[in-house]
C-alpha cells in the first residue's frame, strides 16, 4: 500500500487509456524513431508539447512526472557535459587540455530534450496501459517470430509471469524490510558496511522466497498440463476501433511529414 510508483499503471478512462495496446506500441515506436532522426529544435519542441498535451488529456499527474524527471537530473547533466566536452568545435570554456564547445552544448541540449521526450513517451505508454494489455500487444507483434521457430510463447509466458509477480515482489520486499527494521536493521546508517548488511537481510530472504515461489509455480503449471501454446483468449481480447485508426493516422502524419520537413528546414 505504499505511495505511487513511477511508471505504474494508473486507472483511467481517457481516450489514451482506451486505445488498443498495439496502437500505443506503434505510436510510441514511431515517436521514438522520429525523435532519433530529427535534430530540429522546433520539431522536438513540438513533440515535447504534444507529450505534455497527451499527459494532461489522459489525466496523468503531470506534476508527479516532472518531479520524478527531476530525480534523473544528474544523469541528464552528465549527458550534457560529456557531449559538451567531447564534441569538437568552437571552444567556449577550456579546462586544462579539454574544452567545452558551442556545438557540443547545442548537441547536448538536443539530446537532453530527446531523452525527456522519450521518458515522457514511455511513461504515457506504461501509465495508461495495464501490464496485461501491454504484454498481449508485445506478444502480438512477436507472433511472426514464432513461425521462425523462435520460442516466442515461452518468452511471453515469462513476460506475463513477471508482470503478475512484480507487485507481489514489491509487497514482499516492503514487508521484509519492515520486519528487519523491527529487529534493528539500519537502512539509513551512515556506515556503508552496516547499510550493505541491512540490505543483505532483505535481499537474501527475498531471493529465497522467489526460488521457492518458482518451484511452487512450476508445480502449479505442470499440474495444469502446461504446454507451449499461444494464448487464444488473450489474443482474442484485442480489438482495433475507430479511435485507434485515427490515432495511428495522426501519429503517422506527424512522423512522416514532420521528419522530412524538419530535415529540410535545417
Amino acid at each position, binding site marked *: *500500500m*505504499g*505511495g*505511487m510508483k513511477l511508471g505504474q499503471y*494508473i*486507472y483511467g478512462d481517457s481516450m489514451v487509456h482506451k486505445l488498443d495496446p498495439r496502437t500505443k506500441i506503434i505510436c510510441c515506436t514511431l515517436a521514438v524513431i522520429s525523435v532519433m532522426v530529427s535534430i530540429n529544435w522546433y520539431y522536438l519542441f513540438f513533440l515535447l508539447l504534444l507529450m505534455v498535451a497527451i499527459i494532461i488529456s489522459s489525466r496523468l*499527474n503531470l506534476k*508527479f512526472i516532472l518531479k520524478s524527471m527531476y530525480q534523473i537530473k544528474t544523469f541528464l547533466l552528465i549527458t550534457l557535459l560529456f557531449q559538451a566536452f567531447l564534441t569538437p568545435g568552437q571552444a567556449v570554456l577550456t579546462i586544462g587540455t579539454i574544452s567545452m564547445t558551442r556545438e557540443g552544448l547545442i548537441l547536448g541540449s538536443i539530446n537532453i530534450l530527446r531523452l525527456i521526450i522519450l521518458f515522457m513517451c514511455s511513461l504515457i505508454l506504461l501509465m495508461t496501459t495495464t501490464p496485461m494489455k501491454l504484454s498481449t500487444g508485445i506478444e502480438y507483434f512477436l507472433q511472426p517470430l514464432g513461425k521462425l521457430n523462435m520460442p516466442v510463447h515461452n518468452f511471453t509466458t515469462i513476460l506475463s509471469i513477471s508482470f503478475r509477480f512484480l507487485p507481489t515482489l514489491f509487497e*514482499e520486499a516492503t*514487508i*521484509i524490510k*519492515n*520486519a*528487519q*527494521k*523491527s*529487529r*534493528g*536493521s*539500519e537502512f539509513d546508517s551512515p556506515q556503508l558496511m552496516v547499510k550493505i548488511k541491512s540490505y*543483505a*537481510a532483505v535481499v*537474501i*530472504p527475498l531471493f*529465497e*522466497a522467489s526460488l521457492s515461489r518458482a518451484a511452487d509455480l512450476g508445480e502449479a503449471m505442470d499440474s495444469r498440463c502446461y504446454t507451449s501454446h499461444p494464448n487464444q483468449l488473450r489474443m482474442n481480447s484485442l480489438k482495433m476501433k475507430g479511435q485507434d485508426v485515427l490515432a495511428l493516422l495522426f501519429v503517422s502524419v506527424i512522423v512522416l511529414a514532420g521528419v522530412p520537413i524538419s530535415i529540410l528546414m535545417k
Partner: protein
Amino acid sequence: MPGVIEIDHLFHTYAKGSPYEVEALKDIALSVDQGEFLGLFGPNGSGKSTLIQHLNGLIRPQKGSVTVCGIDASNPKLSRDLWKNAGLVFQYPEHQIFQISVYDEVAYGPRNLKLPEATVKERVYEALQQVGLIQENIAHLPPVTLSGGMRRRVAIAGMLAIQPEILILDEPMAGLDSAGRNMILDIIKKRQEKHETTVMISHSLKEIMTITDKIAILDSGCLVFNGKVKDLLNKPEVLAQYPFDLPEYLQIVYEFADKGFDIKTNISSIREAGEEIIKLQKELEQLRISPA
C-alpha cells in the same frame, strides 16, 4: 496510571493526495496496561497492520498521538529506537530468516542492540528454550534444513531474544498445526505470568479465548469494539457481524439459546456444553412425566 500503550485520536492516510488515497485509520483511541493481553480482530484491510506498525515506530503518527512505554512515537529521534521496546513479529516470520545458522539468526536482534557477545549468547539460548528448541546442536544448523514450523519458532525466538517490553504478534498461528499453536500459547502464558504485555492479531476467538484479557475490533479503520471478552459475548449484534470463529461449545449453546431453550451460555468447555444438554433433556423429561 497511564498504560504501557496509549493511543489517542490516531488517524492515518496512505498515499495522500494521489488517486490511491486510503484512509487506513480513523480516530483510534486505545490503551493497554502493563501485563495485559490484547487480541486485535478485524477483516482484511481493516487497518490492523497499520495500527501495530505505529507501535514500534515503523509508521509515525500523522495525526493524533501514540505513546509506547512512555515514549512519544511521533518524535523521529525516539521512534527510531522504539523497536527495542516493542517487538513486532510479522506474519509468516519464517520468510524473513536470512542468516546461515539458527544461532546467528536469533542473535541478529541482540547484536543490533550492541550487547556484549556473552550476553548475546545467554539471550539466544534462553530464547531458543522459550520456543521449545532445546535439542543440542540446533543452534548451529542452517535454518534451511528445518521444517516450516521449526523455522517459525526460530523467527519468534529472534524477537524474544531482543527482550522487548511489549511483544506484538501478527497472526502467529497461521498455518501451524496443534503442536505449533500450543507453543505460541505457552509463550504468551509465560509472558502473562511475568506480567509482560502482549498484543496479537488474530482471526479466531477460539484460538485466544483462554488467554485474552481484552479485545479490540477494527473495521475499515474504525475501532468498533474495545473491551473485555465477557462484554463482547454479551453483544450478539457484534458477534453476528464479524466472523469470530467462536469456540464450538459456545456455538452449540448459542444455537440452543437461539431456538428458545433455557440454557446456560457462560460455559468454558465442550464437556460443560454436553452436561447442559443432558440437564436440559432431563428437565424436559421431568416435565413430561409430571405435566402438572
